[in-house]
């Protein structure tokens, strides 16, 4: 479950940021670390995640998430 969701989320990130298929995503990436991931794309990402998994990510939680790995963990935990 975790692995599948991990891959799903990576794919969602690629789709939202319009990244190439062969782009290597790593868990230490964060908004601003690549040119495609600006504040607006970040909002889109949150929107897409919220829609896909039908969860809400409150601002207070979002504020404490520092990188992609943490966001994935948060989504997995919340989705369960």
């Amino acid at each position, binding site marked *: 479950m975790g692995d599948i969701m991990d891959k799903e989320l990576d794919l969602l990130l690629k789709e939202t940021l319009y990244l190439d298929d062969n782009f290597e995503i790593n868990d230490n990436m964060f908004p601003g670390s690549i040119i495609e991931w600006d504040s607006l794309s970040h909002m889109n990402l949150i929107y897409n995640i919220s829609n896909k998994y039908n969860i809400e990510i409150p601002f*207070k939680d979002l504020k404490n998430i520092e990188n992609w790995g943490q966001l994935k963990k948060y989504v997995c935990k919340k989705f369960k």
Partner: protein
Amino acid sequence: MVFSSSIFLFLFLPVCLILYFNPFVKSIKYKNIILLIFSILFYCYGSLDYLWVILLSIIINYIFGILIEKFKKFYLIFIGVLFNIILLFIFKLLGVYDTSLLSSGILPYVGPLGISFFTFQEISYIVDVYRKVVPAQKNIIKYSLYVSFFPQLIAGPIIRYDDIYKEIDNRKTSLSGVSDGLYEFIIGLFKKCVIADVIGNCALIMFTNSSGNSLCEAWLCAISFVLQLYYDFSGYSNMAIGLGKIFGFNIKSNFNYPYASCSINEYWKKWNISLGNWFNDYILYPICNSKIYKFILKKLNMFFNKKFAFKMMNYLALFICWILVGLWHGIGINYVYLGIFYFIFLTIEKQFKFPKNRNIISHIYTLFVITIGTILFFSYSDPKLVFLKSMFINDSFIGNRVYLYLSNYWIYYLIGIIFSFPVLKMIQEKFKHYRFYSIVNSIFIFILFFVSIYYMVINSYSPFIYFNF
């Protein structure tokens, strides 16, 4: 009172430090009271007539913070934010109204100092209380200190309550903190008194006689003003951060070498960082998470493909955000154009993923756009378009003043240009492990301090440019 004035450096700050660090005051409660009294005195010195505005704003937002935490009602946050916006709008509008009266001989309008900064801080506070990011502050002295803390009161950085409330409750001051703070303060003082003021004088003279400028003079003037604006504002931020460190507060950096950027997007992430983050969290985030935004997006998805609908809504959110960034600088059509100007470049960059690489061309493009934007929206050249025209279409090419200024002031320009890149940081990183580093660094900072004082004394009073906003 500005940080780079004799009264601040030789009277206000020493008295404040003596009282704050005196061995009889050990409790943080009394230290906070001392800081609050000095913050109010600091404000009174510059804006006594409007002291009531900041006090009213503090009291109202303090009450709203408690009410919002207790009742958790949306209408409360709505009224609270509306109050702050109306307050800001009224005094910004008074500034516009008054400017039109200047010709009739009425004294120029000096509104409540730092209103753009403290209202934004207070909005962030009540919104964060509503979002449950922070607890409401029950102690009015602590809350007042958060809003009025003098190092950041009149020109930022915009401090979040979340970043500072634990330090208001409990902070430690140490010798290394004081020494780091003094170091940062002196760097800021040097930036302001030596680089910004000297280069700014050249810009002022050339702006005053803008119709007689040759092409090179116009460009030299524009570059001078761009450098002045950066050293003036970042110098102030350094001083604010330094003072914060001295008193045990960790204020986040507000500049990260913006002129070393290779795109406008990168530039705005590195210039006035606290303002950019504020707009992200309190404008862009609520817009993109609003029900109306999601509703329109859903409707658009029915008519267009998903990617296109997303992009349309993104650019709409970005547009609103940038109009508001413009209006934050002042009420007027010129500031709306400021927002549109940067929105256009950001949209182009986002749409075409431009510039693709960090290279000299992308760097020149960024500096070019920044220079034009700065001249159009921040400079005191009048009329601005005439000045801008003289930078591109001009009968005269070189002009006498280029030689005059470059031969007399080349060292200031050289330092100004070199240190707008992270050169000092690189030098420090390279040599910090050497044994002699701390000695050389101390000598260096002493020299900077005395040079700054010398320039402060010989130059006349020059306020910070960002005080206008």
